[in-house]
């Protein structure tokens, strides 16, 4: 009964022990969380929970299994922002280059 199983549909699949180690969310994680909520909540409501989920489900299995939780979130936010016309890929790529350059020069946080 595993035909067409979405990558996120994992109820009952084998898995190992539960790692209960936790950490307070980092600032970056909190910012991703906040950004996600601001994008989705009124008044903006650019996309909803179900659109978020189907975008996560469109990730590759390798990425889904190998990525951190907030890494997935910021990745799907990027996709949805482009899909909804809020930002363009070109703008994002240009800004990423700028942010990395600043960081390499010792200035970014």
């Amino acid at each position, binding site marked *: 009964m595993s035909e067409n199983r979405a990558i996120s549909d994992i109820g009952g699949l084998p898995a190992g022990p539960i790692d209960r180690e936790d950490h307070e969310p980092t600032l970056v994680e909190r910012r991703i969380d906040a950004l996600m909520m601001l994008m989705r909540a009124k008044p903006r409501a650019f996309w909803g929970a*179900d659109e978020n*989920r189907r975008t996560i489900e469109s990730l590759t299995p390798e990425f889904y299994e190998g990525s951190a939780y907030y890494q997935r979130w910021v990745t799907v936010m990027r996709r949805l922002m482009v899909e909804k016309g809020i930002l363009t890929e070109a703008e994002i790529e240009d800004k990423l280059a700028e942010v990395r350059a600043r960081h390499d020069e010792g200035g970014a946080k």
Partner: protein
Amino acid sequence: MSRFEIGDRVRVARAFPPGHVRTPVFVRGLTGTVVRYFGHFRNPSELAYGMTGLPELSLYQVAFDMDDVWSGDGAYAAGDTVTADIYENWLEPAEDKKNAA
């Protein structure tokens, strides 16, 4: 107006439609018991693609015996159950008489 009543036996469709769905694979094709009715909600399979998700669908909490799901291959006790919240368009009345006694 709800299609199902608390206590009804219902069978989950053994279906594998394309796209986003919220009925987990582990309950598809199984028969369970309606334990709660939550009212009407928009269809998540359509909301996922920017559609309105209307008309709203009835949403039910359906309980399954662990043995019916896993046939003993798990870590649970006899009588333990698992529930899922399932939209009416995945459910049909079941014919078994499990709860008739």
